[in-house]
């Protein structure tokens, strides 16, 4: 025998640490720095309270057009000179929009970060926003959305969102808008959004070797010329859930897979059940050995992968299961998926499953936080949701210690298998009759 039969015991665990944080208040803004000694690269992120939720009705996508216009030249230099200056530092600018924030990330080798930050601030605070450029970027964005919507997924996402939050509501429309709403965005919309929201200081997050980086100088660069008070957060939206299941069919003729997006609303990020919900969702659809992935992939072979999770922002949350399944097995895959959601809601989780979920979630707080970029992302969660500096150590302990009864109770309360909206994007001509016959819920056609 050449193999060792006995599984080895673990060695001694090292204590969990999150990087030391430093705070500096400068030029009307706050800088939060995380110390990563020895890292060659550093990341910074300017976090502004200017998310997609602040866009006007019918103009969804305004913030995204603005984000994409920032590199079209500044009051200092044109777009070609800007690209050359930034990229010659080895730096990359990544402006982006989510529901809660407008964020501009910049990463570079440590010695270049300050110059890169100055250029990032130049683009954010003093973009040229020439009307011809903004119109062109807007048109390009309409085309880019059409490209994106030709993939499986985005149309299903939009149909689910509209059903859960209401097509007339901002939260019921796609975060980055749709081709029609972006086409309606005007130069004035973009200028007004910049004027209202991007001239406030915000918060600057920095991860890197603080022995070398100068947080005060970085803050000076980020906050120069800004003003305005912090904004108040609007209250959460509540958690209305359908009385009966509903199936929305999104036709994709000839599709060899059906794209599943099954969801219902859930509490916002601040819910006291956050940890228990996350652990329950990990057992159901988070880990590779989750109930859904085990049954739908590893036993049935219907899919390359299936995931279930809660996504939560400041004002709302939702539960969602996402997968691509072979067209011919669409209905059995949906039925099996509903069965696992219902089983988890009714009878909770087991100790064995929970042990995997606990250890995995706790371990991810180290494994997924090795780079300056990921640490900056972790800091942004602290700021957006008002969490304390020692949050990740606390979260880790909660993952390891939350009692099973609380996790099962969270599954019982926050999984609503009978109130799900089931969006199925696939070849309607092939799957419709079988879906109707399965009597899972009323089948309606999407207007997308």
């Amino acid at each position, binding site marked *: 025998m*050449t*193999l*060792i039969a006995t*599984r*080895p*015991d*673990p*060695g*001694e665990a*090292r204590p969990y640490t999150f990087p030391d944080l430093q705070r500096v208040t400068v030029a009307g803004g706050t800088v939060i720095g995380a110390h990563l000694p020895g*890292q*060659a*690269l550093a990341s910074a992120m300017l976090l502004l309270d200017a998310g997609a939720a602040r866009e006007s009705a019918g103009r969804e996508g305004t913030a995204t057009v603005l984000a994409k216009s920032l590199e079209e030249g500044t009051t200092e230099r044109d*777009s*070609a000179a800007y*690209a*050359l200056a*930034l*990229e*010659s*530092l*080895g*730096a*990359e600018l990544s402006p982006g929009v989510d529901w809660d924030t407008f964020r501009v990330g910049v990463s*570079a080798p440590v010695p*270049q970060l300050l110059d890169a930050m100055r250029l990032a601030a130049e683009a954010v605070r003093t973009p040229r926003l020439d009307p011809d450029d903004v119109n062109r970027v807007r*048109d390009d964005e309409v*085309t*880019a959305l*059409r*490209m994106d919507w*030709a*993939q*499986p997924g985005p149309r299903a996402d939009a149909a689910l969102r509209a059903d859960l939050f209401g097509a007339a509501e901002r939260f019921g429309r796609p975060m980055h808008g749709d081709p029609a709403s972006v086409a309606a965005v005007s130069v004035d919309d973009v200028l007004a959004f910049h004027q209202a929201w991007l001239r406030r200081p915000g918060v600057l997050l920095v991860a890197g070797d603080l022995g070398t980086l100068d947080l005060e100088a970085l803050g000076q660069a980020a906050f120069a010329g800004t003003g305005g008070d912090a904004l108040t957060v609007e209250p959460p939206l509540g958690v209305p859930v359908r009385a009966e299941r509903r199936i929305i069919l999104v036709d994709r003729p*000839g*599709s*060899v897979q059906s794209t599943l997006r099954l969801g219902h609303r859930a509490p916002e990020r601040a819910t006291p059940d956050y940890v228990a919900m996350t652990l329950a969702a990990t057992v159901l659809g988070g*880990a*590779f*050995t989750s109930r859904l992935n085990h049954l739908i*992939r*590893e036993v*049935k*072979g*219907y*899919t*390359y992968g299936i995931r279930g999770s809660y996504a939560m922002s400041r004002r709302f949350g939702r539960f969602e299961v996402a997968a691509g*399944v*072979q067209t011919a097995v669409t209905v059995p895959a949906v039925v099996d998926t509903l069965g696992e959601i219902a089983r988890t809601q009714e009878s909770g989780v087991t100790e064995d499953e929970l*042990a*995997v979920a606990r*250890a*995995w979630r*706790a*371990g991810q707080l*180290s*494994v*997924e936080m*090795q*780079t300056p970029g990921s640490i900056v992302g972790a800091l942004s969660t602290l700021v957006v949701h008002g969490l304390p500096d020692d949050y990740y150590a606390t979260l880790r302990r909660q993952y390891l210690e939350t009692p099973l009864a609380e996790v099962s109770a969270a599954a019982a309360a926050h999984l609503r298998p009978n109130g799900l909206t089931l969006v199925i994007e696939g070849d309607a001509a092939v799957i419709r009759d079988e879906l109707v016959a399965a009597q899972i819920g009323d089948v309606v056609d999407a207007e997308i």
Partner: protein
Amino acid sequence: MVCVNLWYDVGSRHEPAGQTGFAHLFEHLMFEGSQHVAKTEHMRLVQGNGGSLNATTNPDRTNYFETMPAEHLELALWLEADRMGGLVPALTQETLDNQREVVKNERRQRYENVPYGDAWLRLLALLYPEGHPYHHATIGSMEDLNAAGLETFKEFHQRYYAPNNAVLTVAGDASPAEVFALAEKYFGLLEPVASIPPAPGSHLPGPATSPVRETVTADVPAPRLYLSHRTHQFGTAGYDAVTVLAAVLGNGRGSRLYQRLADGARIAQPDYIGAYGVDLAHAPAPLIVTATAKDGVPVETLEEGLSEVIGSLVTEPVTEQELSRAKALLTTAWWRQVSTVGGRADTLGRYATQFGDPASAAYRLPQWLAVTADDVTEAAAYALKPESRVTLTYLPETNGESA
């Protein structure tokens, strides 16, 4: 944290005709249990002890890796040794049938169900002649996957999965003495394979000598072009020049392609233009240039524009500014690649497998930085001639402008 990484020197280039996709399907089977690890237990033991894991197969090789809290280093080594030395007894027809369906769904999801998704599959067949080990794609054909029999996979394991065809790399919070002792304990008694069959011959005399075109009319949202050339092998001075060339040509908003076609002539969609090399080490590796037409721009106009910009690399020498921009971006990319224990382990495993010395990884960045403008011009003149070009064109089914 520690990362345990194994490179096996076997990839889809080793697959004979009729067995395309087998190396990758085999990779899936490696997660389904081995002699002392029950089915589903591999994943449960890694994730259930806080780790992340995965594996990838490409034309050149197959790699397996898990990043774990440091106290589970020994567990990771035990798991890897058990599937290196003891996979065959655990292989069952049921597992094979299940993972065959999973892989077919992977093929549907990544290549068949997305617009332009089969571009890479088509490019390989156009770039490398019939019978060349890079001619077929790693994912394989549905037909071959359907025909895959259990015996073939047992033989595959016995032929290629052994200590003398693998490199084990550990990076992170562990001392070299501890790692070497544990490696000896778990892998030291595994039998080497007596003779590993040589990979099918991959020699090519140089760039192609006649152009190849393929036009696909499909359900795609806009006309798109892929222009591709065989260049040099990864790891050579010639390929270092190609790497810098690709950055000058198509990496970032300051690149020639972006400046001239997305920003300047405004004929290409800004989100979908670029150039990159695919770092293959066993035959001249591809450089791929791609662009998607803006609304109303005929695909012929776009192709003319791309050809001009590619040609400019020979006729308009790369400036110092362009060169230093490209090198700055490559420097950041290098440091990003090695900023995690997983990235460090994989990089060292690659250089040990492909060049016999993990320390040779340290030369890559300095070699990129030593590339001159003349080197780039020379690489372009050698590899990017119009007569050696593969042109793959996608047209929408209802494309009026360029029909």
